């Protein structure tokens, strides 16, 4: 095979936490000289919306630490183990968890999703939205950022078939 290495990613998740892996890996691969494509399908379409409104849910996610992004060190270290039943009953719980996560991201010097997405676009990462799921969810092309391509599975394989690395996220 000739030319640069190729990375193909399928992004299927639409939450704030799962927005990170595709954009971090794609932007880094591009910086390393890879030719990179991300195919956004199902909930992954949320990652290429013009207005990003990504949330994270600790509900049913026992792997997610619930820590406070403020206060003294001992307080930040506490893991707030809130039962699922309580989480599901409290209105706005997800919004609160999302706000806390965003603050933690900021405190740790971690890039925001809009920032990483812009870095991918600057680095010519090709972004493709699955037309079938766009229709399925009743979205229209105007909901999405400019520069997206709309295509289907066959288009994905055209690139993925020649890729060195292929990730399903």
């Amino acid at each position, binding site marked *: 095979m000739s030319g640069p290495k190729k990375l193909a990613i399928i992004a299927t998740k639409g939450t704030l936490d799962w927005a990170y892996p595709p954009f*971090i890996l794609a932007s880094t691969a591009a*910086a390393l000289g890879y030719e990179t494509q991300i195919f956004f399908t199902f909930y992954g379409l949320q990652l290429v919306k013009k207005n990003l409104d990504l949330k994270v849910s600790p509900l049913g996610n026992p792997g997610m630490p619930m820590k406070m992004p403020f206060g003294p060190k001992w307080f930040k270290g506490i893991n707030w183990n809130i039962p699922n039943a309580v989480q599901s009953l409290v209105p706005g719980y997800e919004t609160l968890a999302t706000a806390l996560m965003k603050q933690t991201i900021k405190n740790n*010097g971690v*890039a925001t999703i809009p920032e990483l997405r812009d870095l991918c676009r600057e680095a010519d990462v090709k972004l493709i939205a699955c037309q079938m799921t766009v229709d399925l969810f009743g979205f229209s092309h105007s909901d999405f950022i400019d520069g997206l391509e709309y295509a289907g599975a066959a288009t994905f394989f055209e690139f993925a078939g020649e890729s060195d690395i292929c990730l399903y996220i």
Partner: protein
Amino acid sequence: MADKELDARGLNCPLPILRTKKMLNELTGGQTLRIIATDPGAVKDFQAFAKQTGNDLLESGEANGEYTFVIKKKA
């Protein structure tokens, strides 16, 4: 003395690498870039970056929780 300097302190993965790549684009072959970072993961990442992009990692050091790297852009 490096030709350019990048302050990546307080930034976390993958930002130090992405900013480095961007700044290297502004240099010509043979010029050097000095990077200061605080992300401990950067030590391995800069080795990996240099190896995969063909740019030379001339220096890699640590002092008082800050990591310094010097990269020479490939000709």
